[in-house]
């Protein structure tokens, strides 16, 4: 046991190499919990936020969801908004896989690992956001096929459970296998990962499509009942995912000196350049059909963009998102993002926040306002909801940090000649 926990013993003692996969994971966790003062401070702060969130959730479970500001009129709020957005980040994270494997772009392979690590953390957050939204979390076992009663294939929510968990397993397998082989300095066997990579590409699209179907399949909610919802989800996902990866690499470069090569960075930027414009185009199309036609179908869009009957709670949110998206689009289309990293990171942050608002407060909440009987009940998240959400974000970032540290440790232990990391 003692030899396992000591990371230094691995390279020093060749008589006791870490061979088995569980031991490799254990070793990786040991590596991931070593770091500088900055690292410990970062993890300490995240732990503190996560604990505040855990406490808020426990209070919510014991006192009832009355502690949230959700009502029978607006029955999904900040949790489901964040869930929807994180599904997008998870799907977007894997978009690096397409150039890497479909177009055999070797330089993308390192980015793929990062994208998949991001996807894993995002899916963990998604699952947590769903769990905290349950009124009776202790009955989650009713959702387990075989033990409970799984309303498949009728309920879109059961589809979502399947695709999200499947996606998590797929990414854990691909990531773990590639890193393990790298660690052993062995050439990965394509049979063990290429088929899974191909599946994960379609799966990434499926998680977001099915999450969109959750909403657009509801005939009683005209704001969501549009065929454009799934494509819009995908477009904004392919903005948010790559944007987060670019921000991540900027941080990694400054903190641990891990650089992203120019070609993959350029490709990520190009992905965003296209999808951010496509996303804006689809927003314009929807806004046009809503407002040009008019009638009661427009009520939610009217409430969102202009306010309705003296209610304006979401108007500042959506215009912030619109401005962020438009400015980000302008920056991404200019050559500045390629030349100046600060501009790039700024544009990425704008695009990321823009997508978060658009998919969250800008999509989930207005679906409920006005209600199906056209009553207007507004919604502002309660402090408990903010705490729980912040806690899940903090936990997700902890997962991300630990996985990234494991991956970077592997790369440093076994630098392959072609993709040697700069240190």
């Amino acid at each position, binding site marked *: 046991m003692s030899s396992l926990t000591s990371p230094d013993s691995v390279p020093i003692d060749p008589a006791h190499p870490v061979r088995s996969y569980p031991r490799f994971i254990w070793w990786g966790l040991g590596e991931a919990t070593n770091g500088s003062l900055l690292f410990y401070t970062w993890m300490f702060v995240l732990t503190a936020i996560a604990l505040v969130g855990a406490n808020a959730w426990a209070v919510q479970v014991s006192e009832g*969801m009355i502690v949230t500001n959700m009502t029978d009129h607006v029955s999904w709020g900040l949790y489901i908004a964040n869930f929807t957005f994180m599904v997008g980040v998870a799907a977007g994270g894997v978009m690096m896989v397409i150039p890497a494997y479909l177009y055999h772009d070797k330089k993308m392979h390192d980015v793929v690992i990062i994208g998949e690590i991001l996807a894993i953390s995002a899916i963990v957050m998604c699952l947590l956001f769903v769990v905290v939204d349950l*009124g009776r979390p202790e009955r989650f076992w009713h959702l387990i096929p075989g033990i409970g009663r799984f309303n498949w294939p009728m309920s879109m929510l059961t589809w979502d459970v399947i695709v999200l968990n499947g996606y998590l397993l797929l990414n854990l397998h691909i990531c773990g296998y590639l890193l393990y082989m790298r660690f052993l300095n062995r050439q990965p066997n394509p049979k063990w990962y290429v088929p899974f990579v191909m599946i994960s590409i379609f799966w990434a699209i499926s998680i977001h499509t099915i999450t969109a179907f959750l909403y657009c399949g509801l005939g009683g909610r005209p704001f969501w009942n549009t065929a454009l919802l799934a494509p819009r989800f995908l477009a904004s996902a392919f903005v948010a995912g790559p944007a987060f990866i670019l921000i991540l690499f900027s941080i990694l470069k400054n903190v641990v000196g891990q650089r992203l090569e120019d070609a993959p960075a350029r490709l990520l930027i190009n992905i965003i350049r296209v999808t951010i414009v496509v996303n804006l185009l689809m927003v314009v199309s929807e806004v046009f059909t809503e407002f040009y036609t008019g009638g009661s179908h427009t009520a939610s869009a009217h409430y969102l963009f202009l306010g309705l009957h003296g209610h304006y709670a979401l108007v500042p949110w959506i215009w912030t998102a619109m401005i962020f998206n438009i400015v980000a689009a302008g920056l991404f289309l200019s050559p500045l993002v390629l030349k100046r990293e600060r501009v790039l990171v700024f544009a990425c942050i704008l695009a990321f926040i823009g997508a978060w608002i658009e998919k969250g407060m800008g999509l989930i909440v207005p679906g409920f306002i006005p209600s199906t009987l056209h009553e207007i009940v507004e919604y502002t998240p309660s402090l408990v909801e903010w705490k729980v959400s912040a806690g899940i974000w903090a936990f997700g970032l902890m997962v991300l940090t630990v996985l990234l540290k494991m991956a970077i440790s592997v790369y440093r232990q076994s630098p392959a000649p072609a993709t040697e990391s700069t240190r």
Partner: protein
Amino acid sequence: MSNEPANSDGPTNSSGKQTPDSDQNLLPILGQPTSRRTALKAAGAALGLAAFGKAVSPLMVIPENVSVDEFLQRHYKELTDEDKQKIFTRMEKETKESYGAEVSISDPQPIPGVRYGYAISLSKCNGNGKCMEACHEENNHHRGVDQSYIRILEMPKGTMDMEQGNTTYDHTVPQDDKFYMPVQCQQCDNPPCVTVCPVEATWKEDDGIVVVDYNWCIGCRYCEAACPYHARRFNWEQPEIPAEEVNPDQGYLSNRIRPQGTMEKCHFCLHRTREGRLPACLEACPTGARVFGDLNDPESPINYVLQNKRVFVLKEELGTQPSFFYFFD
């Protein structure tokens, strides 16, 4: 194969040791030999776990509020008569403990060959709200909120656009330029709420009533999002009802006091109607606007309305096929 890791040890060692070295400069205690570091990690993990335990300690109410029997209780459709008897006895006991009220929980079954329908005369309804009050009392709703399965829309004459309607009026009724439209569960033939439920906690019974197993629902509120008639309600907290106000005549699938965190809805008062009585909202209506009956019985008042009045359903275009009708006299 064993050579290869050894080969890579060279550069690894030097780079691998850099991290502890740089740590030493920042925080000497972290650069100590491995045992020290391991001990620190263990201490950190223990501290973290303790803090986590403290943070989630409010969850300790779950074992108090949820008995093992309730936690493991199967879906309604999987219960034998014997199981049901045990469960009902347990629930009666729990109601006595929590609310101080003696209640009896029954489980009336659909009457073979009967399909219920409900109709409302928009000419007669004057928006007095007696049906809402009766529903509130009959169904043991939380007294802290103004809850009912029925909402009454006050609409300006000349439109069916609900956007023109108002549910929160508090002036005298009826107003001359208004008409009144109560909306409650439409007991659809193609209910979107049943389709979307991920755990089959809600379903349509043979007599056309859509019910919820309050002890199977996980509280995801997807059905509430799916319902086009705002007919579903969520128990945001444990209902509070004074013992003397608890309606003791309770059905497992209808008006027993619902657990916190689960969905509920109008069930056409099945604990009454399946025993030949009328829904509470109908009995309370002073204008006689409400008509209830068996759609399969040609002699029933509901069939008279369907055959002789100008009848329509709400949001027909959504394909939900309601068993709830509106008509003009």
